[in-house]
């Protein structure tokens, strides 16, 4: 049963990702990418990482993709204004990505032998456990992430200003 759910989510995520790359209209690309993100959130639920699943939907589908969609709508981009690469270049890109896929799968095949874990803890992905780890072992990176967000916010506002005079 779990395997079937996994396979369904995997197929949905791969197909929507391919549609995202190949659709001419960038707005359709954004919508397909949101579907991909929902499939990946389903994988997180399947992995018993509920906190990640919720944060993934809130941050990616809720915030980042809305930002992308907002910019696309504001710049009024659609399939007529969409620049296209030449067929030659597309074939070269497909060959390059295909070779990367072949190399990676060839390198990964049989490389991971993961036996049953030493101690199995099903509560590892819950908020309680993750919060404890985040605020004990990872407190300094957490604070640095806060500073990064402040810098990103100031930077985005400054970059977006119309006529910047320093």
């Amino acid at each position, binding site marked *: 049963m779990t*395997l079937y759910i*996994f396979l369904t989510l995997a197929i949905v*995520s*791969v197909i929507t*990702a*391919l549609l*995202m*790359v190949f659709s001419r209209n*960038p707005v359709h*690309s954004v919508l397909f*990418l949101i579907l*991909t*993100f929902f499939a*990946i959130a389903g*994988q*997180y639920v*399947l*992995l*018993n*990482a509920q*906190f*990640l699943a919720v944060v*993934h939907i809130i*941050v*990616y589908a809720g915030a*980042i993709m809305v930002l*992308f969609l907002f*910019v696309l709508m504001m*710049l009024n*981009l659609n399939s007529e*204004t*969409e*620049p296209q*690469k030449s067929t030659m270049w*597309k074939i070269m890109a*497909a060959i*390059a*990505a295909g070779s*990367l896929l072949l190399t*990676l*799968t060839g390198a*990964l095949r049989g490389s*991971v032998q*993961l036996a*049953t*874990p030493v*101690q199995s803890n099903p509560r*590892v*992905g819950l908020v309680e*456990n*993750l919060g404890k*780890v*985040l605020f004990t072992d*990872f407190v300094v*990176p957490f604070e640095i*992430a806060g500073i990064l*967000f402040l810098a*990103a916010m100031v930077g*985005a506002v400054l970059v*977006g200003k119309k006529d910047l005079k320093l």
Partner: protein
Amino acid sequence: MEELRTIPIEYYLYLSTVLFCIGVLGVLMRRNAIVVLMCVELMLNAVNLLLAAFSTYLSDAQGQIMVFFIMVVAAAEAAVGLGILVMIYRNTKSTDISLLDKLRN
């Protein structure tokens, strides 16, 4: 949880690899800078999925914390990147990345 072990970790490896390569394909194939940024997000997500899978299979929370930090960086990157893109659009009236080759000569 015990039922989860019916899925071999290799499946997650292959799924993440395929998603990552689709992201690379999109970066190489598209000329719209916004779609290129979206493909970078897809690549980050493929790595996130693999980190979460290993974290669960090894019962180690550090992998999931790492996913959390990658999400933080991705959000900051999207905000600044889209700000820069809007600025580029204002100057060139296009989001075509092949126009941005001024450093070439």
